[in-house]
């Protein structure tokens, strides 16, 4: 598996109190644990992103748990109301314990 790469789209600027749309996607095979290896007949071990969170200036904005039915390269879109400038921090947690993070700044006028 190639190293999962997160992508995030957050506006660079917003006005105070504006509701913005945030889009996120991470490259990940989301192996369900229910497929069999075609050659060996063995089950391929589950490996999925099981949790996603988004914080703004240290406060939780959005979080969710994912299950094996979620398809590869999970895409997440949600809204947030912004009242001050700051930093969004996005975190994805992998079954194997890896944590993938990325940050985006927004200026609120």
């Amino acid at each position, binding site marked *: 598996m190639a190293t999962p790469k997160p992508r995030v789209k957050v506006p660079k600027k917003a006005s105070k109190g504006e509701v913005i749309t945030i*889009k996120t996607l991470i490259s990940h095979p989301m192996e369900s644990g229910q497929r069999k290896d075609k050659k060996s007949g063995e089950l391929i071990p589950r490996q999925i992103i099981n949790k996603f969170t988004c914080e703004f200036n240290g406060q939780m904005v959005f979080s969710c748990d994912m299950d094996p039915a979620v398809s590869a390269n999970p895409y997440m879109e949600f809204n947030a109301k912004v009242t001050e400038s700051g930093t969004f921090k996005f975190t994805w947690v992998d079954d194997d314990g890896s944590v993938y993070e990325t940050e985006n700044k927004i200026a609120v006028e």
Partner: protein
Amino acid sequence: MAKTYKSIALFSALLMGTGAALAGGPVDDKLVIDGEMEIQTRVAAPEGHPFDEIISGWHYRTEETRALEADSFQNPGMLYVERGEEIWNTVDGDAGKSCASCHEDAGEFLKGLGASYPKWNADAGKPFNIELQINQCREKNMQAKPYKFDAADQKALTTYIKHQSIGMPVEVDLTQGDMQAWWDKGKELYYTRTGQLNLACASCHEDYNGKYIRADHLSQGNVNGFPTYRLKQSEMVSLHNRFRGCIRDTRAEFPAAFSDDLMALEVYVTWRGSGLGVETPAVRQ
């Protein structure tokens, strides 16, 4: 026994045609990427073409699938474009070079290139697609190993290169070398029935296009979106992989990737999509 049963099921699905629940045909919609770039997905066919109008496979997909392609952020194929760009800039092979070492201004060099392939290669005496051209540069110019068919890096680099022509019209130059003879051969193959099901490309993509085969809505089988991101595989699918899959579905032996047969088909089928905008990476079911 099972085989016979399946083939009957396939045929009855084909012959069922457009029942009310399965009303088919291309949808009336426009492909505009990120609300900015409109892609030509329906164009008038040139003289001698079997159709009056050439229509991209995008019009035959569901609303959700079409929307995925229209948003470059959501389109998972864009991940492979990014990976392809990394490969372009990465040194590999004994000559210590990357693609970028020789083709410095990628933006300038690659713009429109992908829309003009397959292209006659005089040294090889046959048409080359992007995959073959990449392998030639790897071997000759980088002293690196050629990619094996459908290696992850081959698909990503091809996707990156083709994407640099997004929106530009597909145009094959049949006047170069023996391109016309390869076109003729490709056309012959397109109309030749193969396999236990005795179907030609034209049976599905010409005679039955707009109808359903099992759960699949048959398009004209155009190639302007390749490599395409297929939801079924959650992966990029190369053109020769798609060709081989279609031939396999007729229950026939299928030719090797990049064999003369598949290159001839690529020349001819690309011509059938002349004028469609490049969609790479298209999203398909």
